[in-house]
């Protein structure tokens, strides 16, 4: 209860290495599956990078297999000057025309000190493999015509066995002839399309498989943490539960772990995927064209810059909106719970005005978020469109210069589309991981609580065989300095019974809790069969000592489940015997008898019936010692009789301690102890104590008056 509120409110947490290491510990059993997932991620990334490359090949090799690197000199006289300056590989002659590499010619122009005018020419290139498809002889016959349109490509400017045709000449050919020339291209397009189909089909399967795999891995990890945390909580000492509200523990096992699931399933692997994709695309682009890559990197830097600048106000505004919204919801919830007060004081209007203020405030913050988002998203979108414009401008210039192919330019526009995405996603993953960290911290805080010692080191391996109980000067305090028991000493013989009486808060219940070792004593000893309970295993104690609590807790489930308490295969016959033995006739009248479904808290039973179920529960495990904290609440008279007889039956032959509230119960025990402010002030039989005329006598009178009225 003392957990500071501020820690509960912190939803994000900075990246913490220790925390991360502890979290990864839970992933270890899934290492191989996770590695497989990583491999699949790499396959997906490879596919994403490959797709534009296939398109590039298709365009450059088959859709537009032209070369526009070469220029024809306008002034034939320049040829003599230039020939010496341009290397042989960068010039060739077809028929009566000479062609020069555009870049080299410009270079020569600079050497000569004057610009050399030339006309750019596009050549349709038939590569040797295409030539083979079309038939080399046919092509050669075309090339040897009187006025040829097709030429054998000169080496070393083109690969040996290639053919060239001026694109303008190609266009001038009759359609059938032109189509014939390009039939090899169509075959190529079909082949690459098929490869493309195979790639995307593989990606579909891999992406789906990866998604399933991650889900399985994540869910398994979450399952493990959840079970481990729950089992750990179960084994925490009783004193822990006095302080920790059950709602908070529930949240740890449910919602906090769900936040972790999000991280395991999505963020960690996506983080890897996005980073790898970014690197992969970058490397591929650098290989294709360094200059264009730098352009995109420049735009990427701008995107990162905008993300970095706007992320913080966006996150803060988001946080503000969240706290504002929870304030609104808290306000409404509270006014609903306190609607009587609002209406009794006729302050509906005033409350509405107050609500308007926080409601408007929330809208204001949300609008600010719309504003920030309105800047951020369109700006990023604008940058990616602008990146394509830049590619076109600078790439276009290079296409004109003959140093860039259309395929490469188009490939870059493809990459531009997937290049900025990882940055956006990385920012989001970061937020998810941060909030998972906050949950992880809360979970580990519970995990770090020391568990109760179930089997003490001092246990000598032989549990006692007799079951008498002895308290020797026992002192107990729950909080330091507040002693609840101040020297309790008494003994119950095996099979004997004592009743503890006294006003509320005197320490009766505290005494009973020490026998099954719910708490450890400050000093003194509690002995069971002559052995200190501090040296006995908790399982042994709690198996042999049945504890019937004052307020009966009913779990949702059948009557049988509640008697056999979660046992996997409950012994129905035994339960039936107990039900008969204790006179629980009502069970038979329920629909389905022992299988009748009880709702949470047993709301569909009377308090007397609930009590009887708790007795049956205690008997089911056939304990040697019985501790009974009798219910104070009034029970209808007919149940009362059944309960009294049941109490006599469950005490029979068992060492028992009873916190008694009813005279009839008190009268069934061997001895009565009056507890007052942590001490035993009177003890003896009913008659002895009445005769003594002390506190017991007053308590007795009070109880008589109470029961008289009932």
């Amino acid at each position, binding site marked *: 209860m003392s957990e500071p509120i501020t820690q509960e409110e912190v939803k994000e947490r900075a990246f913490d290495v220790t925390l991360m290491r502890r979290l990864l510990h839970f992933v270890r059993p899934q290492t191989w599956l996770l590695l497989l997932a990583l491999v699949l991620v790499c396959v997906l990334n490879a596919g994403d990078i490959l797709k534009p490359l296939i398109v590039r090949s298709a365009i450059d090799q088959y859709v537009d297999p032209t070369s*526009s690197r070469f220029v024809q000199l306008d002034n034939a006289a320049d040829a003599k000057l230039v020939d010496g300056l341009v290397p042989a590989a960068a010039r060739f002659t077809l028929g009566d025309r000479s062609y020069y590499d555009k870049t080299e010619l410009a270079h020569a122009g600079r050497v000569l000190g004057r610009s050399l005018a030339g006309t750019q020419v596009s050549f349709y290139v038939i590569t040797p493999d295409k030539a083979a498809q079309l038939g080399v002889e046919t092509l050669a016959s075309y090339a040897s015509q009187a006025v040829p349109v097709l030429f054998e490509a000169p080496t070393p400017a083109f690969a040996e066995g290639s053919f060239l045709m001026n694109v303008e000449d190609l266009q001038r050919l009759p359609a059938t002839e032109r189509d014939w020339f*390009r039939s090899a291209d169509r075959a190529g397009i079909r082949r690459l399309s098929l490869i493309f189909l195979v790639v995307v089909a593989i990606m579909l399967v891999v992406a789906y498989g990866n998604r399933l795999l991650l889900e399985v891995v994540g869910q398994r990890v979450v399952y493990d943490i959840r079970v481990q945390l729950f089992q750990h909580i179960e084994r925490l000492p009783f004193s822990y539960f006095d302080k920790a509200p*059950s709602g908070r523990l529930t949240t740890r096992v449910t919602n906090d772990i769900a936040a972790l699931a999000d991280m395991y399933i999505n963020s960690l692997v996506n983080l890897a995927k996005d980073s790898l994709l970014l690197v992969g695309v970058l490397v591929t682009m650098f290989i294709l064209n360094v200059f264009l890559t730098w352009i995109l990197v420049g735009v990427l830097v701008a995107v990162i810059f905008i993300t970095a600048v706007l992320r913080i106000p966006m996150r803060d505004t988001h946080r503000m909106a969240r706290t504002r919204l929870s304030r609104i919801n808290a306000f409404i919830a509270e006014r609903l719970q306190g609607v009587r007060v609002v209406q009794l004081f006729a302050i509906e209007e005033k409350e509405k005005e107050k609500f308007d203020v926080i*409601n408007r405030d929330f809208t204001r913050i949300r609008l600010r978020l719309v504003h920030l988002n309105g800047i951020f998203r369109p700006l990023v979108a604008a940058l990616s469109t602008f990146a394509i414009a830049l590619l076109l401008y600078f790439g*276009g210039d290079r296409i004109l210069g003959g140093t860039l192919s259309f395929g490469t330019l188009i490939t870059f526009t493809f990459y531009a589309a997937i290049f900025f995405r990882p940055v956006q996603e990385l920012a989001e993953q970061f937020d998810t991981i941060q909030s998972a960290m906050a949950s992880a911290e809360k979970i580990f805080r519970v995990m770090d609580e020391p568990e109760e010692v179930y089997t003490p080191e001092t246990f000598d391996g032989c549990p006692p065989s007799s079951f008498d109980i002895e308290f020797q000067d026992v002192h107990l305090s729950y909080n330091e300095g507040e002693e609840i028991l101040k020297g309790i000493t008494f003994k119950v013989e095996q099979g004997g019974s004592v009743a503890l009486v006294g006003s509320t808060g005197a320490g009766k219940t505290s005494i009973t809790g020490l026998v099954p070792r719910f708490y450890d004593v400050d000093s003194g000893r509690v002995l069971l069969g002559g052995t200190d309970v501090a040296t006995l295993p908790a399982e042994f104690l709690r198996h042999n000592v049945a504890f019937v609590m004052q307020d009966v807790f009913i779990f949702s489930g059948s009557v049988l489940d509640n008697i056999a308490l979660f046992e996997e295969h409950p012994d129905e016959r035994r339960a039936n015997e107990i039900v008969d033995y204790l006179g629980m006739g009502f069970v038979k009248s329920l629909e389905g008898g022992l299988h009748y479904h009880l709702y949470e808290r047993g709301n569909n039973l009377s308090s007397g019936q609930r009590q009887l179920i708790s007795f049956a529960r205690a008997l089911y495990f056939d304990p040697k010692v019985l501790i009974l904290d009798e219910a104070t609440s009034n029970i209808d008279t007919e149940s009362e009789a059944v309960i009294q007889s049941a109490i006599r039956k469950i005490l029979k032959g068992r060492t028992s301690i009873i916190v008694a509230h009813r005279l009839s119960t008190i009268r069934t025990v061997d001895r009565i102890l009056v507890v007052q402010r942590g001490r035993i002030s009177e003890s003896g039989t009913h008659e002895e104590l009445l005769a003594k005329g002390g506190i017991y006598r*007053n308590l007795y009178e009070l109880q008589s*008056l109470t029961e008289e009225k009932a």
Partner: protein
Amino acid sequence: MTSTETKRTNRLRHLGPALSRYWPQYVGGIMILGAVDVIQTVIPGITARIIDELAVFTAGPHELGVAMLQIGLLVLAMTVGRYLWRYLLWGSARRVEEQMRRNLFAKFMSLSAEFHDRHKTGDLMALVTNDLEAVREALGDGLLMISDFIIMTTFTLVAMFRFNRPLTLMTLVPLVLIALVVTRSGPIVFRLFKRVQDAFSALSDYVQEAMTGIRVIKVFTREDAAARGLRERAMDIERRNVKLVTVWGLTFPLIDFLGSIATLILLWAGGLLVTRGQFSIGGLVAFNTYIGMLAWPMLALGWAINLFQRGQASLARINEILDMQPTILERPDALTLDDMRGEIEFDHVTFEREGKRILDDVSFHVVPGQKVGIIGPIGSGKTTIVSLLTRAYDTTSGRILVDGHDVRDYRIKDLRRAIGVVTQDVFLFSDSLEENINVTELPVGTEEVQEATRLSGVYKNIMEFQDEFSTVVGERGVTLSGGEKQRVTIARAILKKPRILVLDDALSAVDADTEKHILDNIASFETKPTTVVISNRISALRHMDKVLVLDSGHVAEEGTHNDLLRAKGMYWHIFRKQLVERKVEKE
């Protein structure tokens, strides 16, 4: 709860007024959205033209520069436009949401006790959180996606048709499939998702129960057995999540795949067309961009349909509540009650709820300024008397008169304002103490607030807090003890300067001396209000002018303390018991 049937058929009956205030924003937003979409379809055209010009050398650096400038300007316009439609559409959705939340809150406050008895806080909260969100999403994102789908699809298709008709039709096939996948898988995913949520709440219930009953589990060493139950439920979550992903996990890869198929068709069919000279490379590039632009609206269409379905269901639930009318009604010609004298008369009052008779022919009379005590066991109907007096409920038969008029004749607020009630279940808001005490409609001065706390004996306690009257109560602030809370609520009632003051078991958590002190203070009020003290402690009632003993809904005994002791009935019995109790406590 009564509303005309014709009105009920109009789904937008409550949303309409809020929407109509923002229709210019909606229309403007959608128009800008359309403009942005048009610009978006223009850009690929520019790209295509420049690429084709590059192929035949008709474009040089100058043309490239011009194209880039054009694109740059268009991008700028798009960015501004995108900001504007976001602000107009999403902003309006937020404003409509604000309005609706306001209406819901006002409705909650106006509905009678009977409504609040029947509806759990959690259920009503779901209305202002989940349902309102669903409506807002339909009005914001849903509307946006539908508009975007219609405008974007239309313009893109027009642009594509102008390039090449057969190619457009071919690439459209996988894109339409995307819309189909999303629309079809939506409900399945929703159902599977609901099953995951069900499993999760089953787990939550189980853990909550185990944590509440942890002592039973430990007492019977059933830790392992309880953990088995957890494993089953946790495993169930795992299984259902995996099942969800078998469908949901296929959605996005499938959409990616279909998008790629569209690209493939373009490459294949478009590429072949280029080799035949019937299509250009620029066209290929433009088409590829168009495909990208169409994929999103297809996705959006599927989502929008799902959003509208959810929003409609939520709106129906909200409408149902907004249709409700208070059951406690005021007559149109209700009397004003400026200066109450404080006379109360119950005239053969019978009150039934859910078939149970709570009060059975109760009659009594209290003159102005009189002090009346009421005692009786739990469920005897004590609190019901207060509820009827303040018209939280109306009587089943019989009349309650205040100053000689039926309480149903007065204006409700006048009546409630004149009666100060300290309720049994102390309720404080998570506000400052000052705000909690000063809940009168017209705020009064600090001086008076302090005086009220002095009279209720809590002034000193408050001044001991660090922030004194500004101390915030509840989860976010200081936790008050039961006695302190009771005295704060007494101060709250006293501050109203009521003509009738009712303390309903309001002193149970204070000790006997404080109780006497407070009762003495109240008795010495100059205004001499009629005072009704409901208590189970004889000490609080012995100085009353009159005590009523209630038993199972009827007045069993009536008289002064001494009268009742002499009668040796229920009152006398309680008296004797409390006497011994005191004796035991003292020892």
